[in-house]
């Protein structure tokens, strides 16, 4: 039989295959980190990973679905409060209660979607902010969970959390340090799962549809992509991930108040800067952005409000002059894509090569 070229569609590139190997090694190293580094470093890594998760979900909303939300703190706070309620009132283990936080965030997102999707573009943004304010004000009325001043997780709950006892024996840690390691591993797992999930989503048929809707909603509609449905789906998914992450953050913090849990600065402004500086609309952007953000925060933490002022200015300058962020800058010059989403047509001379997609 004569050998004829075959065509196949692939999204892989050499860089992506190399980066997959490096990523696996990094994850293994990160998982092993608590064995070698100090408790302070574990907490820093926890912070980086949770901000990365929030940034990836905000990026999915704004960068891929065109839904600019300034109200993701609603889901951080509501997920966290739901976790607190499940632990303090229902006596669930905090690790299990994190799942309750994620589900609660989705349950909140269903009615709020009904309101915010009546607003378009910029008004959607402020609409999400109003919703977050409403949720904060309502939660602050919940006296059982401390009302406006907040409350702490019962000490017994964090001490008896899944895995803490085993880690104490295994690594010889105090229970508070062991708790940090447990939450750190959960954060690592959540970050890896988030990136893997979003990457898969973007490479799927649904993801293609999403890109089509972002580029031209009416044209996408003409070829049968239901843009509104896609956007609703993304909104709910982002709420779930953000709620999980909020609950996880507050398992580690173990103390909550409405002002902190629904802070627009902590859970939305920082996240927006991470994504904008790193590169909006890419999976790599938030990863780079969160590292830059962490370095900036360490360098400028002593300067109080100057720090936020500088962060705001950097965000404005990047948006005006390099709207695709640091990753866009790198990728334009090198052509590297670590998480390629574009489908490329490859002509195979070797018919033995199996189809990959």
């Amino acid at each position, binding site marked *: 039989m004569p050998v004829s070229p075959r065509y196949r569609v692939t999204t892989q590139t050499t860089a992506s295959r190399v980066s997959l190997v490096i990523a696996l090694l990094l994850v293994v190293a990160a998982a092993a980190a608590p064995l070698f580094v100090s408790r302070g470093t574990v907490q820093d890594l926890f912070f980086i990973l949770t901000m990365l998760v929030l940034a990836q979900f905000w990026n999915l909303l704004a960068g891929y679905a065109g839904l*600019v939300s300034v109200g993701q703190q609603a889901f951080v706070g509501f997920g966290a409060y739901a976790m607190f309620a499940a632990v303090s009132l229902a006596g669930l283990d905090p690790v299990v209660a994190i799942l309750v936080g994620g589900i609660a965030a989705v349950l909140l997102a269903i009615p709020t979607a009904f309101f915010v999707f009546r607003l378009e573009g*910029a008004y959607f*943004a402020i609409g999400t902010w109003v919703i977050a304010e*409403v949720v904060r004000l309502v939660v602050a009325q919940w006296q059982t969970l401390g009302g406006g001043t907040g409350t702490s997780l019962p000490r017994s709950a964090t001490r008896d959390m899944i895995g803490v006892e085993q880690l104490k024996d295994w690594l010889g840690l105090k229970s508070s340090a062991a708790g940090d390691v447990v939450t750190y591993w959960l954060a690592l797992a959540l970050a890896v799962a988030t990136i893997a999930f979003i990457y898969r989503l973007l490479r799927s048929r649904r993801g293609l549809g999403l890109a089509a809707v972002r580029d031209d909603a009416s044209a996408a509609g003409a070829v049968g992509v239901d843009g509104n449905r896609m956007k609703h789906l993304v909104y709910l998914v982002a709420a779930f991930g953000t709620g999980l992450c909020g609950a996880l953050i507050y398992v580690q913090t173990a103390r909550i108040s409405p002002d902190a849990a629904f802070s627009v*600065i902590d859970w939305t402004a920082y996240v927006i800067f991470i994504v904008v500086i790193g590169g909006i609309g890419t999976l790599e952007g938030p990863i780079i952005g969160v590292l830059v953000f962490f370095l900036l925060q360490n360098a400028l933490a002593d300067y109080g*409000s100057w720090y936020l002022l500088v962060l705001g*200015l950097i965000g*404005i300058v990047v*948006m005006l002059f390099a709207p695709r962020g640091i990753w866009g800058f790198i990728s334009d010059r090198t052509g590297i894509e670590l998480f390629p989403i574009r489908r490329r047509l490859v002509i195979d001379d070797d018919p033995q090569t199996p189809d990959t997609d």
Partner: protein
Amino acid sequence: MQWIDTILQGLLLGGLYALFATGLSLVFGIMRLVNLAHGDLIVLAAYLILILVSALGIDPFTAALIAAPVMFAVGWALQYVVLNRTLGDDILPPLLVTFGLSIVIQNALLEGFSADSRKIPAGALETQSIALGGINVGVMPVLTFVSAIAVIVALNQLFYRTALGRAFRATSDDPVTAGLMGIRAERLFAKATGIAMVVVTIAALYLGTRANFDPTIGPARLIYAFEAVIIGGLGSFWGTLIGGIIIGVSQAVGAAINPEWQILAGHIAFLIVLLVRPRGLFPRTVG
């Protein structure tokens, strides 16, 4: 009688919210730009008036008269140098740049004035009241409301009686064809934001003389302003006034039931309107 009093207070409060909202409505109407730093610019103007009052020993109204052209220049330059670059089909740049601006203004004010609450002293006016149909109302709230109406009348005159107003409306309809009429959109937008900042100065005058303020209260004012604009329906200044009144009355009634419910009641009223009339109470029929 107590309820009538509450509603009257809420109505007058609505005048303040309408002043917050009018600048936002003006800029959105002309260039479809939502400025997330709008509330922070109001607070910035309040500090400017405060500085003028304490440095020159003048009364706040004179200070606002001096602050207004300064704020016009600030708005003109902000639009011409920064915001014009963000306009286009993509909604991300204007939102993210103005959000960054909001953070910058808040923290610059924190650095310059600390987080302490301030108030612009307005002398005897602060405590004076007049009897309206048997109910005593403060002179300042009445002045605020009258100013809101004056601002809306003036803006309507500007929009419907002047060449500049025609250019605003034409550019809002179709910026390319407006260019063929010799209208330079970049400069026209700069003028519009300048005018919005004059309205912001008037809002700041009443914000700062009626209650305490600090550098972080801007975003909440933005939200009230936004709610008033959406309730009123885009593109109608009188609608914006009604929207402000609805928020003000809801807050006053909410506060009368339980002081903790004041802000929440305003938001709930907004959500109810969004539910039953998603395009606002007075949507523009054209376009």
